[in-house]
């Protein structure tokens, strides 16, 4: 019975990791850019939500809605004015610039908010739970998981059903030819990063309400996102969800055996997948 509960908690935690990973996966899929500041941007969004909650007294969910367009603008500008300049054949400039950005965001947040652990309080919904037969699940973890599913369904609809999505796919395949067809790759890239920041804001909402965070929490969120992407296989958003679930279950099972093993167990699951299925469990992309 206890084990069933552990696994359920792991699956729900996996939803959070899939939310961390979806933005990373989207940006990589469209412009082959790995943003090393992704985790720090999640933490930045969490602080933005925190500021909206504490200064305006808004409900965290409303705050996240307010934060979304702001984060979209930040992502759009970041891509258009900074990261677009680094894209090219050489993978060194984007990696080093986003690594620099990660350090800048971390230390900017440290300067602005100190190193204290923070948390966004969501009220009574935090402790509410539902009875699912033999196990109980918290409302917030359930919402996290279903938000992840909704985000993935939404992104897939966007990518495969709309004209923006067609432009995304065309630019991903061949930016030069897409440019000849009247698409401006620079703007498509900016739009994609903006969209990724909207997903990051959703992830930040559940990160901030679930547990404590501080300005240096970013790098480990990046690592979880990355592990979920690689376990699932590049290019598949549903694979990313599966990767997040595997990571989440590995962590909760590890923690159930020995609390010190939680993070380690997740990393070992990742290395195991890399050992036996180097291209991930559900690979789609050729690269």
């Amino acid at each position: 019975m206890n084990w069933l509960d552990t696994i359920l908690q792991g699956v729900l935690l996996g939803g959070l990791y899939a939310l961390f990973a979806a933005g990373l996966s989207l940006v990589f899929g469209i412009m082959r850019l790995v943003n090393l500041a992704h985790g720090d941007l999640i933490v930045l969004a969490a602080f933005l939500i925190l500021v909206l909650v504490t200064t305006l007294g808004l409900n965290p969910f409303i705050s996240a809605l307010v934060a979304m367009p702001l984060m979209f603008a930040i992502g759009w500008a970041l891509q258009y004015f900074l990261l677009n300049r680094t894209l090219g054949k050489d993978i060194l400039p984007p990696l080093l610039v986003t690594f620099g950005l990660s350090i800048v965001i971390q230390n900017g947040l440290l300067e602005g908010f100190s190193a204290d652990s923070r948390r966004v309080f969501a009220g009574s919904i935090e402790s509410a739970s539902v009875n699912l037969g033999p196990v109980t699940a918290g409302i917030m973890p359930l919402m996290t998981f279903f938000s992840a599913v909704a985000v993935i369904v939404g992104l897939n609809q966007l990518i495969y059903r709309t004209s923006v999505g067609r432009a995304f796919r065309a630019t991903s395949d061949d930016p030069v030819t897409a440019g000849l067809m009247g698409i401006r790759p620079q703007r498509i890239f900016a739009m994609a990063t903006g969209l990724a920041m909207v997903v990051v804001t959703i992830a930040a909402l559940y990160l901030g309400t679930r547990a404590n965070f501080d300005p240096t929490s970013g790098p480990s969120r990046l690592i979880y996102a990355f592990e979920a992407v690689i376990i699932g296989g590049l290019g598949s958003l549903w694979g990313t969800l599966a990767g997040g679930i595997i990571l989440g279950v590995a962590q909760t099972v590890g923690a159930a055996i020995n609390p010190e093993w939680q993070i380690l167990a997740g990393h070992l699951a990742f290395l195991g997948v890399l050992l036996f299925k180097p291209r991930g469990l559900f690979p789609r992309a050729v690269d």
Partner: protein
Amino acid sequence: MTMAIPSFTVETRTRASTLSAMAVIALLLLAFAAPFIVSRGVIQDLFFILTMLVLAQNWNLLAGYAGLISVGQQAFVGFGAYTMFGAVILFGVDPVVAILIAGLFSVALAIPTAFFTFRLYGPYFAIGTWVVAEVVRLLLAQWKALGGGTGTSLPREATREMIGVNMMRDLFGMKASEAGDALTYWLALILVIATVGFIYGLLRSKQGLGLAAVRDNEQAARAVGVDARRMKTLVYLATAFITGIAGALIYVQKARISPDAAFSVTDWTAYVIFIVVIGGIGTIEGPILGVIIFFLLQNLLADFGSWYLLMLGLLGIAIMLFAPRGLWGLFSDRTGIQLFPVRRVLKGGPLNLTHKGGPHG
């Protein structure tokens, strides 16, 4: 009428390099004499500069020449340091010997690490190395004999009775702590000479030419018979060896270890990346210039706490965008001066080819 075919020679030497070789020898003699000339505080600063230079040269070889952009080199710094602590505390090995053992153990760690991370495509390799560093940190934090998560200290007797310390006390009349600092400083100096010598030798050799070819165009290099994967693996293992030694040496001097400090991304990777990027990636001179600038900035801005790191990050971004070959690259492009030339220049013959070709061979 036949035209005499002029004879060609391929050279890498430049006039500046001959001059700089003499200047370097003079500078090294001075550096070896430093413990007799300057105070202990200065020696400790120089030790910091030298060890950061070793880490920077290694990262530069990885990222600038082999195209392996790692953000997980702290794995080898920390593992080297912990191996040294383990050998000294658990087996009573002399710290100087333990430093060498640490290098070997780091290579042993690098073999499985390479096996995993080399499966990851370009940018994901970077995060993969980071995951490995985290795994090693979490595993070592479980090792209760070495203090677990809180860490431990080297026994005082171990550093006081290191090989050479007693001899230096008798010969130069130094105190034990002074002799210890001088010894670690000399070891760091030797490590810098060995590292720069190794990298310079490698880049001027046939293997170095292959490495540059792989970096510039992997497919073309493979087509002419360069085994890219083997070259990259060898560079990865060699840098793991030197980085492990550097990590152990740094922690002989610190004499106190904890998993969070020994595997710090900021201290052993972020600083190192900024040193290389600011100085000039893909040159041997770049990290040397970078480490001097880094040291000056750190002393000027140390009181500003996180502002300092924030500015370092912005400086790194600005340089990557506007001067991707760093400050040394700017200087070298303007003046043509190379202190460690690795570019092959064709001399003689009817054509003046001295200014053709890519930056490094």
